[in-house]
């Protein structure tokens, strides 16, 4: 492997790791505040217990997210100094505002976690709301930076770097509204599905556990709403990509040749040598409809673009299929669940449905990671699309294998540890567990 590949692998690993914790840091506070609020409304102590458990989970995940986010802000320079040296000033504004949001999030999380006995219930709930709001704001600002890398605007490129910098234009580069909405929804969706999966698992083992039914009733609404909204936002986002980044769309769809009335290819593994997608199933005119809303629209194929500006087609296509596939499964499950909720009087917890939710628990995270891979691989070979290649941005420091393997080992270790520590938190709520007084409700 070359140093460029090690640098990309290290950045990718760090982001893939951080994204999970960042998503949880955005969404768990919402779930925590919701259960807190339910406790205040119903007086049911199980909801308070749930919000305390979620707060502990938030604390652990937020801490790991904070330090892995610190790693990333250093890695921007450690791995991509030329990118930062040239474009740091162009993207500094959203990063600075993200810093502000991170500050408020950390402050109010401190008050929420440690201040339950020290501040009034209203201030406590307000702190929780502030954590949720600033978590969303910080994800919003960081996604703006990624939008800039995909659709750079707000400067004039020269060989010496950007001139005529307009930070506010750069901050809201084209497509920002779709990408930020898509990312924020994915954070809520991934976390709500994971939480629902955990409680479905316990309900399968302990069908009577009232505490976990209540927990499910907090997670399921958010999971179902986001799972149904996400395909709509995703569609808008794809339509924007079709216009703004046609080469990325072509790679996502494994679309090699420009075509009028292009078919939508499901599955398959693109082969760039033969320029075909063996193993795929074509839906006639599907791609033209999805990308442009017109069955006879022309969709540009990869053949329109110089070979050295193609993204890794197979990877982008597969990642996109995984994202869309898992997204569709989750939307389907949401529909079934909402139907059952509508027919019954409470959130359903039948065994069949619980098995489905257990299976779907990790899918939100899978879709989140896959979607992020689509946008990152799909932008290659550029770090700032059309302006700076990733290979131009990389650090001249040699032996990048060493930090790559070090961070791989560290993140593997931390990942396993977090799972272990979180599982112990959940295990404490099982019927018969030491602090499981609440497990049976009252």
């Amino acid at each position, binding site marked *: 492997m070359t140093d460029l590949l090690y640098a990309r692998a290290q950045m990718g690993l760090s982001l893939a790791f951080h994204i999970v914790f960042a998503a949880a840091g955005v969404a768990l506070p919402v779930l925590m505040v919701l259960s807190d609020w339910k406790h205040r409304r119903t007086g049911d102590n199980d909801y308070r217990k749930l919000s305390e458990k979620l707060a502990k989970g938030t604390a652990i995940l937020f801490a790991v997210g904070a330090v892995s986010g610190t790693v990333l802000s250093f890695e921007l320079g450690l791995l991509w100094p030329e990118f930062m040296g040239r474009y740091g000033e162009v*993207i500094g*504004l959203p990063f600075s505002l993200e810093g502000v949001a991170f500050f408020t999030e950390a402050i109010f999380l401190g008050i929420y976690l440690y201040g339950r006995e020290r501040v009034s219930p209203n201030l406590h709930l307000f702190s929780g709301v502030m954590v949720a709001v600033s978590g969303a704001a910080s994800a919003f600002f960081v996604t703006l930076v990624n939008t800039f890398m995909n659709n750079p605007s707000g400067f004039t490129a020269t060989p010496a770097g950007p001139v005529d910098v307009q*930070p506010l234009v750069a901050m809201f580069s084209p497509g920002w509204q779709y990408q930020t909405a898509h990312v924020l929804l994915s954070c809520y969706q991934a976390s709500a599905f994971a939480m629902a999966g955990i409680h479905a698992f316990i309900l399968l083992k302990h069908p009577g556990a009232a505490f976990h039914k209540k927990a499910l009733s907090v997670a399921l609404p958010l999971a179902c709403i986001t799972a149904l909204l996400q395909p709509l936002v995703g569609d808008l986002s794809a339509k924007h990509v079709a216009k703004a980044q046609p080469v990325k769309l072509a790679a996502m769809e494994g679309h090699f040749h420009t075509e009028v009335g292009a078919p939508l290819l499901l599955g398959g593994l693109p082969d760039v040598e033969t320029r075909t997608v063996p193993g795929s199933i074509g839906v006639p005119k599907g791609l033209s409809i999805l990308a442009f809303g017109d069955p006879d629209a022309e969709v540009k194929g990869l053949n329109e673009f110089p070979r050295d500006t193609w993204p890794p087609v197979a990877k982008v296509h597969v990642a996109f299929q995984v994202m869309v596939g898992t997204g569709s499964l989750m939307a389907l499950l949401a529909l079934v669940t909402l139907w059952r909720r509508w027919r019954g009087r409470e959130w359903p917890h039948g065994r069949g449905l619980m098995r489905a939710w257990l299976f779907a628990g990790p899918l939100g995270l899978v879709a989140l990671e896959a979607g992020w891979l689509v946008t990152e691989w799909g932008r290659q070979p550029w770090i700032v699309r059309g302006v700076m290649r990733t290979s131009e941005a990389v650090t001249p420091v040699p032996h990048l294998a060493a930090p790559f393997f070090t961070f791989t080992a560290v993140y593997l270790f931390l990942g396993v540890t977090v799972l272990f520590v979180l599982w112990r938190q959940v295990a404490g709520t099982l019927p018969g567990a030491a602090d499981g007084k609440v497990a049976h409700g009252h």
Partner: protein
Amino acid sequence: MPIEEVLGFAVAGTFVLYALLGGADFGGGVWDLLALGPRKAEQRALIARAIGPVWEVNHVWLIVGLVLLFSGFPRAFAALSVALHVPLTLLVLGIVFRGTAFTFRAYDTRGDAVERRWGVVFSVASVVAPLLLGMCVGAVASDAIRMQGHAVVSGFFASWLSPFAVSVGVLTLGLFAFLAAVYLTHEAHTPQLAEDFRRRALVTGGLLFPLALAVLLLSKEGAPRVWTGLSQTPFALALHVGTAVAAVVAFALLWTRRFRAARVAAATQAGLIVLGWAVSQAPYLVYPGLTLRSAAASPVVMRLLLVALAVGAVTVVPSMVLLFRVFRPQPPGTASGAQETTAT
């Protein structure tokens, strides 16, 4: 004042605040490692309670400083990231292990071997990170980082492993440990614990004098511009006098057990030391090629960054005041065990 100097001042300000707040949290880890005597467990519990609600907030100052540096002075950020790749990577690992180990220990309390092991990871990382941070500062201050165009030509090790850089690392560690000990005298909820940390503060405070002197002497060879800056300009001399006065006052207040005031004096002393570095460094970010002016972003960027800072201050400062008020130390005897203390 030209706008790049205002922004440079803001960057220096975030470093000062990071040293006073985040630095003290690292210092807390040092005292966790060095917990001794019959009240060993109480010392560790006090440190954990003091750091718990605030360490993540205090840590954000580093992120803000970093973001201001790469947005406001992008070329300097790029050069430093290349030249200091190795120590910064190690520093980041230290930050990761400090934070995660502290959190795992706090939220997975079982009083067993696993918890103790997290404690060791937390405290060792708390010693390593300030050392590396100080060594990076030393490397920058010593002008040992050399560039040709955009390329760094001074190698990846020599600059931060020089005797001067290492001495700055040790001084940083000592300063953070001193700050933590002084803060903890005020946080302690029993007179005995306050005494424990008073002794630690007096000893480390005493050690800071010869340490600072060693750094100054090494700078004559290792960082000539700092030496001139620190010993010859009138402003630097005034800073010196201020630092010395604050140090003596902090010592006297500790001696007479006026802990609340001692905190202020110690923070002043540490703040002036960081400021002294910034002043002796100015206007160079990486000597001689990158100055505040030559590395600066476009004026419009810098103006917007200052606006963002102002907006940030409006939301962050009142929130932070609230945080520190909620967790302000209670006088001994007024609070129950679960309700005491926190760090500044």
